[in-house]
């Protein structure tokens, strides 16, 4: 209990010092390029009241959910296949290295050039950027599967679905969570670029607009809103999922 309280005090102190430093620096510079926290909070509140921030944030989150889900599903399926079949992996390994090293910006531009400035092209560009990372992580997880447990499942005639859901998936869980966390961090940054280059709504579009107007307070307000949402996803979805899946550990 005392430990928990100490941890909470430390967290509060850390946040307080961060905002104090920001305030101090903003007062010292005294320029529109670094507005103080209170000004940013006011802008944030106004943007919420006008409905502009919830609309653009919602659009970006929708793109995040769709592209994240597609990338995770595709990446897990390909990663498991490559981890299980050596020859398949030998064939596609070079493709993977190529896709891993293509800059995100190139994929985005090519998708817009080939398919037009449409929603599908935007989502596709994000998915193509993320899938190779998921594949690499899940492939390593599949390679590390416990052969003793797989033999047990075969001997006791688990069947394919039971083996996957009770033997393979729990072992892949830490790898899936690692891919999900890094994926979330990577995808939302790519989505902003996608929106900046070819969409007429979303956070990226708004940030581009604020940049042209040199409106740093709005840029910071939107950033704080988005980072808070990502943090909420971590607290409300990812952490409880982790705790539930790993409750068997000592």
């Amino acid at each position, binding site marked *: 209990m005392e430990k928990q309280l100490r941890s909470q005090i430390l967290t509060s102190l850390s946040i307080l010092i961060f905002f104090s430093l920001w305030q101090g620096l903003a007062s010292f510079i005294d320029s529109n390029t670094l507005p103080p926290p209170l000004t940013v909070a006011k802008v944030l509140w106004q943007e919420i009241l006008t409905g502009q921030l919830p609309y653009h944030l919602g659009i970006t989150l929708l793109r995040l959910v769709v592209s994240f889900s597609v990338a995770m599903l595709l990446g897990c399926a390909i990663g498991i296949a490559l981890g299980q079949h050596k020859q398949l992996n030998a064939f596609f390994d070079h493709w993977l290295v190529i896709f891993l090293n293509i800059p995100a910006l190139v994929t985005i531009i090519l998708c817009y050039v080939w398919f037009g400035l449409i929603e599908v092209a935007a989502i596709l560009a994000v998915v193509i950027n993320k899938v190779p990372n998921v594949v690499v992580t899940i492939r390593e997880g599949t390679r590390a599967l416990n052969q*003793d*447990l797989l*033999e*047990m499942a*075969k*001997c*006791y005639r*688990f069947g394919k679905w*039971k083996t996957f859901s*009770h*033997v393979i998936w*729990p072992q892949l869980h830490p790898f899936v969570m690692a891919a999900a966390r890094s994926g979330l961090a990577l995808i939302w940054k790519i989505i902003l670029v996608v929106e900046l280059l070819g969409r007429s709504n979303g956070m990226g579009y708004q940030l581009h607009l604020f940049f042209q107007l040199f409106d740093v307070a709005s840029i910071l307000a939107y950033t704080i809103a988005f980072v808070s949402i990502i943090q909420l996803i971590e607290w409300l979805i990812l952490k409880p999922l982790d705790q539930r*899946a790993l409750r*068997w*550990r*000592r």
Partner: protein
Amino acid sequence: MTDVNINIEHKNFNPTTTSVTKKVIANLDIALKSGEFVCLAGPSGCGKTTLLNILSGLDKNFQGSIKLGQSNTQPSIGYVFQNPRLLPWRTVRENLELATSASPEILDSLLAAMNLTDVQQTYPAHLSLGMSRRVSIIRAFANDPDVLLLDEPFVSLDPPTARQVRQLLIKLWSEQSHTVLFVTHDLREAITLADRLIFLSSSPMSVVTEIPVSIPREDRQIEAQIELFRSKIFSDYPEITTLL
């Protein structure tokens, strides 16, 4: 209950680190009668686990034939591995339910017989090794298999626990009369459990000799009887000392 006829002409092994092929089993002929309890003993690394993997269908890369039973239907096999191989993320009860089609009542009675009723909702990480081994024995028995394979299931257990689990195993076996193939290094354990002992040579593995255990089952708890039989084996078959 099922007859088991094993005829392996040869089984090779290719270690991934070298290109040399090693012959693990050569001209192995073993026949088990229905309901018979047979113990296999042989030097470490001679290929006993490989033989059990072949019998269970996990290893199909060999020359020869395995006949389990007379009928055309695939006989069911219960396999107690050297380590318990329980799914750590499933409770004891879930582990058993996943691997068997036994009714809840049968599982309840087997858990009670193995003194595990209180820990059935526990995860394997919280069990002792002895408890985990007992769970793996229940898993093998619960399907009422035609053939039961046990690969040194009591190794690294302390003597009192091993004795207790051995008695429980015999109790279950006498109730269900499975055909059992039990691998062990411990000659006393083999004499206590088996109808017949089969001694195997080092790699390439083949049968050196077979010895029926003539001690009546009710006298197997008398240590002096076991020791006497063991001494007789060593005096009649001196070459066996090198195989254990």
